[in-house]
């Protein structure tokens, strides 16, 4: 087994072990998106009603909530790096004969696995709020969730590689997560907002993640899906490609930054 594969497997193994053993984390990571869904759904559906023929607000926001859940969890996976540094376990990881890149990728794989499980729970709940899910959709969704999650955990580890306290990490992450979510089209279609807001949204890589998931859910409703750039409407594959490029850069940066610490 190569060094990098070993690192990926060992670190991912521990991430998952920790995830299933910490009941509070397990609960909160499933409860949060549910809460969002119920509150936003109940709160806005009456007011906003139908967005486009056949698509009400819950159906519109549902794919966005999935993307948001994945985003929060993936970025937060960096927290365990800071946690390990504070409690010393990072030293055990750093002196082990494993490559640094493998360690970073292991974090990403671990958080992607968690993201897929969360996505699964969200999909199980979909019929309860009136969103239709087909087996084909599930199959298509899994790789997209993996790519989004791995990309964003790169962001989490990148921030974490330089932070010494959990409070500091959480502060920085909150500052990043909020604009990322609000400018990503989770809550409104980005094609039909003021120009400056549109510019920000279209520069936000998460926008394309949200759009990819939404296109799969709302196949054909192009009024609210399909981000357009310079007149070109993005397809699912193009959306995913943008997220993957962005993710590769983040993971490379994270591995570089993580490897530099002594």
């Amino acid at each position, binding site marked *: 087994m190569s060094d990098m594969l070993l690192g990926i497997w060992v670190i991912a193994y521990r991430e998952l072990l920790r995830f299933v053993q910490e009941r509070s984390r397990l609960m909160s990571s499933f409860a949060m998106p549910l809460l969002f869904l119920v509150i936003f759904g109940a709160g806005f559906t009456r007011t906003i009603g139908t967005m486009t023929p056949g698509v009400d607000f819950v159906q519109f926001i549902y794919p966005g909530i999935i993307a948001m859940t994945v985003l929060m969890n993936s970025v937060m996976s960096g927290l365990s790096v800071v946690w390990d540094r*504070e409690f*010393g*376990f990072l*030293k055990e990881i750093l002196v*082990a*004969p494993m490559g640094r890149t493998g360690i970073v990728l292991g974090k990403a794989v671990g958080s992607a696995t968690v993201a897929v499980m969360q996505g699964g729970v969200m999909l199980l709940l979909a019929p309860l709020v009136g969103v239709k899910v087909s087996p084909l959709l599930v199959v298509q969704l899994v790789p997209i969730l993996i790519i989004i999650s791995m990309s964003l955990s790169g962001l989490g580890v990148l921030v974490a590689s330089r932070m010494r306290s959990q409070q500091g990490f959480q502060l920085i992450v909150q500052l990043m997560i909020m604009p990322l979510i609000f400018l990503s089209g989770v809550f409104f279609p980005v094609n039909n907002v003021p120009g400056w807001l549109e510019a920000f949204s279209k520069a936000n890589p998460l926008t394309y993640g949200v759009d990819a998931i939404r296109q799969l859910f709302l196949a054909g409703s192009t009024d609210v899906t399909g981000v357009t750039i310079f007149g070109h409407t993005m397809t699912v594959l193009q959306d995913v490609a943008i997220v993957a490029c962005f993710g590769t850069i983040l993971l490379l940066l994270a591995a570089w930054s993580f490897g530099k610490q002594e």
Partner: protein
Amino acid sequence: MNIIEVEQLSRDFGQLKAVESVSFDVPQGELFAFLGPNGAGKTTTINMLCTLLKPTGGRATVNGYDVATQRKEVRNSIGLVFQDPTLDEYLTAEQNLRFHAYAYRVPRDETEKRISELMALVELSDRRKSRVRTFSGGMKRRLEIARGLLHHPRVLFLDEPTLGLDPQTRRHIWDHILQLRQQHGLTIFLTTHYMDEAEVADRIGIIDHGHLIALDTPDRLKDGLGGDVVTLEARDNVAAAAELREKYGVEPVIKDGSISFAVSKGETFLPRLCGSFESPLISIGVHRPTLDDVFLKQTGHAIREQEADPMASARMMHRGGGH
């Protein structure tokens, strides 16, 4: 065969020279102790030897591998127990060991056997499935020793293995360390600022302010003082020291209101001194030299006086964090 070879090893942190041109060798199978006060450069040296810190000068090899260029091979050759705990407290004891076994490529069919053996060695078999956060400080340290041995390293590094533990637990940890010494071919490299702990080592390196100032067996270090140590207190220590130097040709050191010096035969020297000494004396005593005396002689100060170092106590309170 020398399992550790260190040549002119140095490490600077900006202006601060934490370790300066330290050279020594450790033969295979030795119990080697690095003795020095907090901040002397012990941990910095260990961190360089275990590839956590790059040297700024000189070179070192562990198990024949260069610590700067063959880091992976070095890491495979060593087991480590740090000053501060490095366990995942939310996992169980055996989960921590298993993580280590995977990370160090312990063969799968051997992993469970070794975990059982090592848990028995450090007397934690009954706590195998307990989460580490329920462990006491001594139990954590023992678990870390077990973990450090899991991949059959050639050298086990123990950085202040008994720091922050009560005397009874300290003794317990030492029983384990001495037991390990019986193991064939295992070299143990430990740092300590406790004189009595260094005493059991095969050889001791004394380090102070980043310099290695003495290196020998405990007996020879003590013999090097020139016999027994006489401690006396006079009404006027300065005058008494001058008289000692003049009349008896010894080298007295004044420290904490008393004078100490070494003489070859303490028992016969004392009556001679009392018969002819002119400065008024308050008390006088003679003892076999200890490593404390060696340290005092070599550095001009006692090892204990630097323990009130505020940085060290701050680190003890907040275990973890810094590197």
